[in-house]
């Protein structure tokens, strides 16, 4: 049994008369420790799937299993705990609390989790050891995204979910962030799922899931993923 299993997952949005199926019977699985990339054109349902996987949204139908547990069957409280202890989330627009320093933003996450890592160390690991006391507004986009990743990692989750982590970044910075994610997966064996519309990054993944119109278009397994430095777009 795989670490993550999607089994016929549906998510529909009612827009007046018409029903938009954002996820239309999505079935796939991801193994533990894999670095997985979900791609597809805009509106394909990537974010929807990631949100469902991250416990931020529920599905209308189908089953979602993580480490054998049926996430799609969780109640409200269990779902919060799932997000709290098992999932780390990285957003396209970082979603840092502007009033808090880099360190405090990370602490916001660590203070609620028992098995969390030391906030300062995690920030040092993402290369922000000297920017601990800067506010988000004092950091560049890449640095903000690093803080965001640090915040997700500091919880020491089983699963790291990233929605377009490089979407708002320039090429080099984007690459650095991808590298950080790949390294994390390699070094800690953490399962990382990255959503991106950028087809060019697929070679760095163990598993590539392509979506189209809410359906799984193709699943490719790559036994020899390349290092981030080696790809270009």
């Amino acid at each position, binding site marked *: 049994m795989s670490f993550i299993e999607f089994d016929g997952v549906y998510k529909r949005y009612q827009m007046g008369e018409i029903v938009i199926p954002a996820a239309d019977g999505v079935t796939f699985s991801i193994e533990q420790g894999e670095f997985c990339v979900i791609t597809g054109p805009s509106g394909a349902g990537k974010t929807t799937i990631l949100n469902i996987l991250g416990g931020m949204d529920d599905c209308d139908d189908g089953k979602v299993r993580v480490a054998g547990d049926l996430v799609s069957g969780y109640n409200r409280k269990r779902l*919060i705990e799932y997000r*709290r202890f098992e*999932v780390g989330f990285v957003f396209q627009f970082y979603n840092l609390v502007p009033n808090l320093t880099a360190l*405090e933003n990370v602490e916001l996450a660590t203070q609620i989790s028992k098995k969390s890592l030391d906030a300062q160390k995690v920030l040092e690991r993402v290369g922000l050891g000297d920017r601990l006391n800067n506010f988000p507004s004092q950091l560049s986009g890449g640095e903000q995204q690093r803080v965001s990743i640090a915040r997700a990692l500091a919880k020491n989750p089983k699963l790291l979910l990233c929605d377009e982590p490089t979407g708002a970044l320039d090429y080099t910075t984007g690459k650095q962030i991808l590298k950080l994610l790949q390294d994390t997966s390699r070094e800690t064996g953490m399962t990382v799922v990255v959503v991106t519309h950028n087809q060019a990054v697929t070679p760095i993944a163990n598993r590539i899931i392509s979506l189209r119109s809410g359906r799984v278009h193709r699943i490719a397994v790559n036994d020899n993923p390349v290092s981030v430095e080696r790809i270009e777009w």
Partner: protein
Amino acid sequence: MSKALFKDVFRSIIRTRNRFLSIAAIVALGISVFAGIKATAPNLKDTAEKYFYDYNLSDISIVSTIGLSENDIYKISKVSGVEAVMPVKSADVFIEVDGKKVIDIEGAQYVCRATSLNMDMATAFQNGVNDAAYMNRPDLLEGAYPKQENECLIDSSAVTSTHKFAIGETVTLTGDNENLKNKLKNTQFTIVGIVRTPMYISVERGNTLIGSGKLGNFIFIPETNFVTDYYTHAFISVAGAFGYKAFSPEYKAYVEPVIKDLEAISEDRVRARAMSLSIELAPQVERGETELAAKEIEAEQKLAEARELVKQIKYYAENGDEELAAKKEEFESSLSDAQRRLLSGRSEYNAGLAEYNRKLAEYRAAKAIADQYPNARADYARAKYDLEEAKKDLDEAENALNETRRLLDQAGEEGNLSNYVVVAQAVARVLAGRAGESISPETLEQLQQAINEENAQQVYFILEGAQRALEGELNKAKYEYQVKEMQLEAAAQDIKKLDELEAAEKKLREAELKLNAGSSELSIGELTLNMRQMELKYELTLAEEKLAQAKAKAKTADEEYAKKEAEVRQQLQNARHDIDNAKKVLASLDSAAWSVDGRDALPGHVEYDQSADNMTAFSAVFPVFFFFIAAVVSLTTMTRMVEEERVQLGTLKALGYTSGAIAAKYLIYATLATLIGTVLGLAIGFVLFPVSIYNAYSIMFTTPKIILAFRTRYALIGLILFLAAVSSGAILACRSALADNPSKLMRPKAPKKGKRVFLERIGFIWKRMSFNTKVTARNLLRNKRRFIMTLVGISGCTALLLTGLGIKDSISSISKNQFSGENAVAKYDAQIVLNDRNVSGISPEETLAGVKEDVRVKDAILTHMRTLNGSSEREPDTVLPVSILVPGNTEDLQNFIKLRNRKTGEAYTLNSEGVLVSEKFAAKTKTNPGDEIFVTLNDGSNVNMKVAGVVENYAFHYIYMTKELYTQTFGEEPVFDFITAKLSDNIKSMDETERNAEKTKLATDLAKRDDISVVVYTDQAVNTFNKLLKGLDALVFIFVGSAGALAFVVLYNLSNININERLRELATIKVLGFYDREVASYVFRENILLTALGVASGILIGIPLHKFVINIAEVNIVMFGRSISWLSMVIATSVTVVFAIIVNALMRQKLKKISMVESLKSVE
């Protein structure tokens, strides 16, 4: 406006309906409080004014101490400006229902004013005639007008009565020590209608000269009931006075000259009436005195007789018991004596009877034996005879023998035969006597022969033989005799027995007789005894009955006597009173005067005006503050809205819309919300506030239903102010937003810059703070606008709440500070009003001594008090009525009145250096120690005096001065017309009902004295204040309610903005896995802190705000308390906190519903 824009506005409203509604709600609240409270005072005055007009309230009233004659009325009507005069007759009386005196809540006899009602005028009024001369018209609330002379209309308000008067009831009027028949034809009236009149606009009915001095209610009775030929009141309407607003200074100024003119004619009128009264009354008094004296003597005699009778009855009733007991004892003992005697007689008799029976039995036995010898007596006689015969024989024989023997012996000795023969012959004679028995005749013949033969031998022989035979014979006879003797003896024995028997029989017979006699005696005794018993018993019952009767009589005798005496004395007193009244009237003729008063003298009139003015004062501050908060909050809301929609703004701008067109959307939005709020607020405010405030006041006032009016002025002012506030918020926000170029607008607004807050610089505090606290602190301090808005909202609401509650504290403390509190200014309990010494003939000093003697009075002091208009050199335009108080004894005054400066705490003693003035007077006239003040005398001249000190005082204005200073200042000695008294500790320690009863009794007792008019207790003033407070409670409730509602809306709105602004942040922490409660506390820590800060600063703002309102609201004659109670602070705080909690609970739900997916979808 394009259709699209309109649609956009409409959609915005739907989408942000919470925001739209909260702006409308805030506006509604603000406007309703503003316009509602503003409208209340004019509504109150309009209501009264219409009432005055409809029921033709008189402008001036004249009361004369000696009544008004027809001529007086005529002269009054001729005074210029007088439109009409209504003369009225009235009598102040006690009132009874079902034979029981009606008692007021203080335990005193309820006093009713029976007022004449001109039935012709009343009928005409019913038929729609509006006669100016028909004034102070009864407003019929229930029932009908009187048709019979003995029917009446009664006062609808009788708050102080313990009895509730109803239609159909019959009331009986009784005089206070006066012969009511001298005034009224009927004294019994059936209530046919319930009325009110503009004369009595409040529940106060004013004062009276009878009973406790407090008028309870009034009744209207047909005028024909009055037999008096004079009027007690004249009511006057001034031509054109209704053209002026009631209560207004213009009105007063208009009426004042007429009052002055009436006062001007009063002297002549009073003199004329005094003259005619003295002509009428003087002879009456003289005649009355002689008649009364005779009547008194007669009455005393009759009473003395009656008393004697009662005494006898009572004596018997008291002592009859003893007498009866003695009699009873005698009866019992006499009976028992007789019974005892009878009893022992009976036993004696029984013993006798038994003895008798025994003897009878014996006798019977003896008799039975005796009966066996019926011949015993004969036998005995015979035996005795026999024995005697035998004795004779025996004696003969013995003689014979002895003769024989002697002869023989003689013969033998002499040997002489011859002798023999003689002997023999003698013997033979003897023998012959005994011939045939022991000596046979042959022997005798032989002897004869022998003798004849002289045969001595033979003779001897024979004789010897004869001797022997004789001896034998003798022995035999002896024996026989002995037998016979024995027989006799036996017979004698028998006879003796017989004799005894006979004796016994006799005795028995006697005993029987005696017994019989005893028995009958006993029977008689018994009979007598029974009869005596019956007799005695009868006597006893009679005596008992008599006693019971006497006792029963003794019980009622006193009562009967008392009743009788009361009756007689009442009659005498009536006569006495008539004379005294006449005398008093005569005595008072010199000092007689009219009191000519405007409407202000009507009970409750001024208070009504003041209550309305108090509202004006409230409306000056309360709604304005309210308005300010509401405006600020709605402004914030609008600003926020514009900021939220900046992207859309940018898009529109990019599409070529002008700034004006874009701003129009927000203006329309704001205007719509304001309009809806205004309509709602006015609809609620113009009704809710006047009605509920009026209802609160209706405890004190008896006026018709409030007249509500749409006050366009206030409506417009409110609308414009809010429109300005809300739309300027929208415009300001739009302007700053539209200043940016479209592309910048369309891009997400750069997130706010994180900044260090000052707290972080204080390392030792920052380090000690928990992570959450740091977040809270930073959020709070970073977002200053929200911080300040919330603070303003919450603190404003708390301040309003505190002010509302504080006003109540302040007003309620007046009576506490002045009269009833621990540390009150007035330490006395009663003011005793003295009668004119010229009338009573008793000096005030004597009266004081008399009052002090009463054990119920702890201490008392003479006081002079007169009220004049006072002012100061510094503030001559401020003229206040001030009471000059002069103590009879300077040192004692401080025992009755606290003479102390409130601020410095300095205690004063009165001296001749200067006067002490009360605080409010000093403040109003800007007077300090050392300054001069002056009072204006009736003749218009001013009298100056130097101020030595300012003393604490809360109600009315006072000038305290010594007797000496008064004399020096006014050039005359003060007339002591009051006694100020303290009640005994004993009375004070009683429980309330007991104390009230005791006080009423004291008042009644004192008022009975000729030298005392009436006793007024200070707690009557306290009661009035407290009643007013009850109304205030409701008022405060309204204010607290609206302030609370504002607090709620403000908190809700601000929390809502807070959450909306931070949706993204909140969604993020939800994604991070914060539990619901953690999310809530993340937000609410700030709210709680802001609430706490807001409450604290609200209290800090509330205290001066309260002072400010108090200063405005304070009426001249009272000084409100300056402090707010702790309880009010606690209530203000908790109301705000409770609202904060409720708002938090609502917000918690909202937080729970925040969607992470939606909130994080894109950057704003």
